[in-house]
């Protein structure tokens, strides 16, 4: 080893280079948090401010004095609870059906010998990419023939079918991670496929199933176009349609809109924060490590 190299090495250990990476990472992550949460916090602040403060010369960042008028207004004057009820019924029923039907299908694809399983999975994936505008008109015609317009069932069936590709893909992935030896042992003991499904697969995959259900619930809760096209009655319209129609004749009621946004988003945000780890592994196919 030459003397120069030794000298350089010792100098490096003696005086480590100033590391700017750490502060930079903290700065960047702070920016990411502001970016992600900022607009929502502004919406929250808006929902708690007086109308006169909202249209003042200088926006107030904090809602002082606190005012709950907008929250009262959306329920009393705008019947917002009806939209919420409709959304709960539609999103809840479609998610439940989606999980049952999707889990059974994913089990068949992951575990039983289905010929052409990759063909089916590819087909299901392709279907999930159909532009939804391409099916809205024909479905409208079908729904009106069946007398299904302005019903819960039309939205439930549509959301069920829209959610299935996602549920099948994610649960297929989950079921594949369960060791096949478990069901082979059960098969040797004479268990039938559905017994294995209910007694072995479901209990082991339950956390994944719950997360998948949560994601498909959020998707149905947020869906707008089909709800807009298929419902015109406040007794059947869902939350996104309700919020989209929140305009008064003479001005835009930003405070009310903000209050409604907060009401429908808060549960989602809470759920997402509680289940965040599961959700991230759900949407990324389990690839994000801790």
């Amino acid at each position: 080893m030459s003397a120069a190299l030794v000298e350089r090495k010792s100098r490096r250990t003696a005086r480590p280079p100033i590391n700017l990476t750490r502060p930079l990472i903290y700065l960047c992550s702070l920016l990411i948090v502001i970016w992600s949460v900022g607009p929502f916090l502004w919406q929250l602040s808006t929902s708690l401010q007086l109308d006169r403060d909202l249209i003042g010369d200088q926006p107030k960042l904090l809602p002082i004095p606190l005012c709950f008028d907008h929250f009262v207004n959306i329920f009393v004057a705008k019947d917002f609870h009806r939209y919420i009820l409709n959304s709960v019924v539609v999103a809840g029923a479609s998610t439940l059906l989606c999980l049952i039907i999707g889990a059974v299908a994913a089990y068949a694809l992951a575990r039983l010998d289905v010929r052409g399983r990759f063909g089916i999975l590819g087909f299901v994936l392709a279907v999930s990419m159909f532009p939804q505008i391409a099916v809205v008109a024909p479905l409208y015609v079908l729904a009106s023939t069946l007398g299904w317009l302005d019903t819960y069932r039309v939205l439930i069936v549509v959301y069920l079918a829209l959610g299935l590709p996602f549920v099948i893909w994610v649960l297929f992935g989950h079921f594949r991670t369960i060791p096949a030896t478990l069901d082979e042992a059960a098969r040797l003991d004479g268990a039938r496929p559905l017994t294995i499904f209910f007694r072995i697969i479901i209990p082991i995959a339950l956390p994944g199933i719950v997360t998948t259900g949560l994601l498909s619930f959020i998707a149905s809760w947020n869906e707008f176009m089909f709800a807009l096209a298929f419902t015109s009655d406040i007794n059947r319209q869902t939350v996104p349609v309700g919020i989209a129609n929140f305009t008064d004749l003479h001005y835009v009621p930003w405070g009310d809109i903000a209050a409604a946004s907060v009401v429908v988003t808060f549960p989602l945000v809470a759920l997402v924060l509680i289940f965040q780890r599961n959700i991230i592994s759900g949407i990324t196919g389990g690839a994000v490590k801790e």
Partner: protein
Amino acid sequence: MTVDPGIKLPRWRPGPWLLLVPALGAIGAVSVYPVLLGLWLSFRNTTLSSPDDAFVGVSNYQQLFADGQFWNAWGHTIEFTGVSTFFETVIGLAMALVLTERFLGRGIVRAAMLIPWAIPTVVTSKMFGWLFDGQHGLVNYLGHFFGVIHTNINWYGSPEFALPTIIVADVWKTTPFMALLLLAGLQTIPASLTEAASIDGANPWQQFWMVRFPLLAPSLLIAAMFRALDAFRIFDLVYVLTGGGPADSTEVLSTLTYKNLFSALQFGYGSALSTLMFFTEIIIAAGFGVFLLKRFREVKL
């Protein structure tokens, strides 16, 4: 691991297909059959407000290609898809690179990033409508405050700024999700590779371009394609924020189709539009599906 071939597993009849029937039936009834029905409608002059309902051949398509509104919407859709996918991929990648580092509070940052994704798109539209309001919007105020603008800008009320405002809203909503997808891709790259590069004297910039980027390229491509497919069918943001206006400056294919269907009630013409969109997407998706399946087979699921 499979069972010893000497042991015979009992065979099951009538077979697992029965379990697939409900799912494939629902998908068939709500996705496949309507697409075919739409194709059929696109060759007819069906109008819900009149008794017209006859076969007209390809005349809807001829009319479409001669329609200035169609090309206007086509241009906006391509612009929106290209620009938003580009920014979402680039900013998403930057966010993902930050998140691969281990630091205190990383979990909180990751959780916060899920919020824009979870918020209903309709709410996002209204939220950005308020932020970018021409009179009392926070963005105009901050612009004044930092001296970037001197007069209030009527963001989504003016033809020149409306589409960019929609793109900003979409980038806000989708980038964090993109970042999480790319993070998943980054984490499959063994740390030993970047460590080795660092020992060889590569600086972080070189490490990224020479080691991580080439390995990440497939995930990046998949994520961007997914995003582009989704951006191409944008509806909610535009419909709620601008309704396609002002002066058709934000009209995209989905909103134009929707208006033809449910305002003009021209189901034949509207179906020609949506069928065209369908084929554009199916071409992209088919290429994508083949690519993805090949990769899946390679890793032998």
